[in-house]
C-alpha cells in the first residue's frame, strides 16, 4: 500500500456447483487483468466497476458505458453532483420567510457544510 494507492480494492468471489467458495482480493492501484475470456459473464461486472469506481481492467475498452459523458466515476465521491450546484436549496430561507444574514448551504454543495 504505497502513497499512490487510491484505496480501491476489488474482491472476486467464486463459488462452484460443489459449494466450494474462494475470495480473491486485489488492490486496484494499477490495471487489473480482465477475466472475461475465462468467465464471459464477468464482462458486465467489470464494466460497472470500471465506470463506477474508475478501476482499469487490462485488455478491454476503457470508454464508459454506464457513466454520463464527462462525469467522474460516481462511487469514488470525488465530484459533486452538478444538479446540486445549480438547484436552489429550499432550506436557505429562515423561519418566517426572512432572508438570513449568513448564507448557509447543505453538504454536497460548493461552499456548504462538509
Amino acid at each position, binding site marked *: 500500500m504505497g502513497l499512490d494507492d487510491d484505496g480501491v480494492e476489488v474482491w472476486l468471489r467464486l463459488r462452484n456447483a460443489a459449494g466450494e467458495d474462494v475470495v480473491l482480493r486485489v488492490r486496484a492501484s494499477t490495471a487489473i487483468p480482465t477475466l472475461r475470456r475465462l468467465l464471459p459473464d464477468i464482462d458486465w461486472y467489470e464494466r460497472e466497476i470500471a465506470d463506477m469506481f474508475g478501476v482499469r481492467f487490462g485488455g478491454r475498452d476503457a470508454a464508459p458505458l454506464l457513466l454520463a459523458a464527462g462525469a467522474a466515476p460516481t462511487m469514488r465521491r470525488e465530484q459533486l453532483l452538478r444538479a446540486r450546484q445549480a438547484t436552489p436549496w429550499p432550506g436557505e430561507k429562515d423561519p418566517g420567510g*426572512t432572508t438570513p444574514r449568513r448564507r448557509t448551504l*447543505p453538504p454536497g454543495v460548493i461552499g456548504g457544510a462538509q
Partner: protein
Amino acid sequence: MTIRGILVLDASACTSCMLCVRECPTWCISLDSHQEIDPETAALARPRTVNVLDDFRIDFARCMNCSICVEVCPFDALSWAAQCDYAEPQRDALTHHWS
C-alpha cells in the same frame, strides 16, 4: 406491526421552523411562511412575533422514505399515514401541499 404509508403534515402543529426542509437529503421538502404579530400579545408591552405557515410542499417524486423529517420535527407535525397514496396521473400532482 407498523404500517408506513405516505407522509402527512399536521399543519396546526407546524411552526415553520425549517428543520425538516434543511435535513431532507433529497431536498424534497419546501415551505413558504411569513411572520405576524400574535394577536393575543398585540396589546401587551412586548408583542410576540409568530411564524405563519403559508404553503408546505413535499415532492414525492424525490422522497426516499428515510423518515429523517419525521424524526427531526420538534413538534411531531410530520407522520406516516396508514395508506400508501402515492400514485398520481400527473407528475405535478406528486407534490403534495398543506397550509
